[in-house]
């Protein structure tokens, strides 16, 4: 069947505009400040995660761990990127693994040998998770996934030791100045953003199928699991009508952060709501660093122009306060 000429033109125009939108979204160069800020936050979160594991490091990953390497491999079969399978299973080696991961995360946070350290952190983090999948939470998973895409990102193009050294080494005029990092293609940053949106969308889809979430009783259970308590929650917060409202709000926020976050005019309102949502969870529930792991990726949704404007505003304030007479 032949399509009429008008339909063909329309189809080709639609394809062209979709391809243009795709190219603008993934490849239009922009300031690397958001991805650099994310790299710093990411590095700090990996450091915090690793340090929190330190007291029980050998109990989880050592030669006499809770779950042996062979049991782990039989329970979770398949070829997996897991450096523990090639590292000798002595406590000395497993300890060395800890220090390599910690050192590499520190260098990643400061932006020293950024690309290399992003690869080392991803490999080590993935190995740690694969070695014992039964103690990882959603925050760990998000760090691992974001780490995968961070390896491809120009994360050291700003706010990094790498850049500082590059600027110092280069001749005047050859390299961009310290204050203005060269724009970069943001496709890897976009993938971390998409990953975050998919996280919210999947969480929303899981909840929307659940009677407990639809009838608003889900949070009743969550708030009465004693092992999850952190700080006391006021009694009115646990009233049935409030719990319904909270359950539905959680679903609405997850849905919005998945789909409406891409609408520019709604973005900052949704980011503020999302922050409030995660900070409430951080206050009330003991789920380790999950909330911070997720919140760190919000940085990537801040428009680089707005980030620069905010940075200039802060600098002006700081300069102003320095020059003010006592």
């Amino acid at each position: 069947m032949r399509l009429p000429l008008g339909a063909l033109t329309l189809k080709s125009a639609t394809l062209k505009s979709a391809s243009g939108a795709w190219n603008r979204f993934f490849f239009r160069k922009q300031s690397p400040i958001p991805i650099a800020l994310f790299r710093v936050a990411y590095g700090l979160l990996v450091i915090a995660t690793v340090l929190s594991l330190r007291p029980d490091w050998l109990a989880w990953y050592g030669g006499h761990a809770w779950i042996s390497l062979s049991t782990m491999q039989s329970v979770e079969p398949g070829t997996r990127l897991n450096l523990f399978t090639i590292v000798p299973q002595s406590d000395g080696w497993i300890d060395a693994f800890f220090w390599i991961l910690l050192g590499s995360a520190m260098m990643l946070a400061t932006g020293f040998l950024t690309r290399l350290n992003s690869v080392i952190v991803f490999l080590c983090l993935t190995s740690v998770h694969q070695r014992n999948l039964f103690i990882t939470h959603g925050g760990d998973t998000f760090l691992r996934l974001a780490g995968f895409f961070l390896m491809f990102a120009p994360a050291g193009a700003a706010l990094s030791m790498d850049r500082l050294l590059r600027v110092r080494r280069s001749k005047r005029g050859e390299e961009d100045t310290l204050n203005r990092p060269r724009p970069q293609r943001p496709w890897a940053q976009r993938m971390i953003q998409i990953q975050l949106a998919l996280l919210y969308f999947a969480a929303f889809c899981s909840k929307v199928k659940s009677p407990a979430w639809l009838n608003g009783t889900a949070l009743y259970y969550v708030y009465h699991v004693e092992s999850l308590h952190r700080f006391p929650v006021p009694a009115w917060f646990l009233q049935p009508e409030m719990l319904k409202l909270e359950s539905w709000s959680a679903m609405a926020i997850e849905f919005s952060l998945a789909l409406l976050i891409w609408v520019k005019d709604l973005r900052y309102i949704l980011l503020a709501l999302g922050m409030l949502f995660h900070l409430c969870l951080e206050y009330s529930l003991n789920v380790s660093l999950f909330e911070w792991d997720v919140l760190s990726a919000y940085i990537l949704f801040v428009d680089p122009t707005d980030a620069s404007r905010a940075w200039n505003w802060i600098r002006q304030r700081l300069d102003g306060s320095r020059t003010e007479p006592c």
Partner: protein
Amino acid sequence: MKVARPKRNHPIWIPKVKIAAINLFLAFHILAITCWCVPLKLPLFPLCRKLVRPYFLWAGLFQSWDMFAPSPWASNSYVEAVVIYKDGSRKTWSFPRMEQLGLTDRYLKERYRKFSEVLQIEDNDLLLPDVARHIARLNSTPSNPAKTIILIRRWSPIIPRADGSYQPEPWDQHVLLGYGVRPEDLQ
């Protein structure tokens, strides 16, 4: 006047190939991650999950985001172990219980909450012998080694009331595993 063109280090087609490769990478990962993690029953999702499974497992891209869903944990529960020694004495050992810890310890020991939850799930029975062996090692001395480890799950259901109040229900228990400790387990 002729202007000298800057020397190109690579053939002209390389950037195009690079962009095409990146586009392929992006399209593949967006599609694969969506199929993997979004719990929708769409026709192509199971096939896609099956196809990408080896790569996702290998690269660590597997993920699930069912936070407190579809059904949240509906009981207070913990796992403890009864350690029976060679001399016949007994001791009860428990995983760190978050509700009994201070704020800092709760943060640092949170992994034990997760681990203890995992051990209570029937699908994870294969983990229990390793856990019993570890508890035996933790609780043995050369003069009085552990002989038997009994892993017990204790739980109290959470039952919602119409007025929103909470009444703790009586605790129930269930033996997860009885394990006879062998001398080599303690080495």
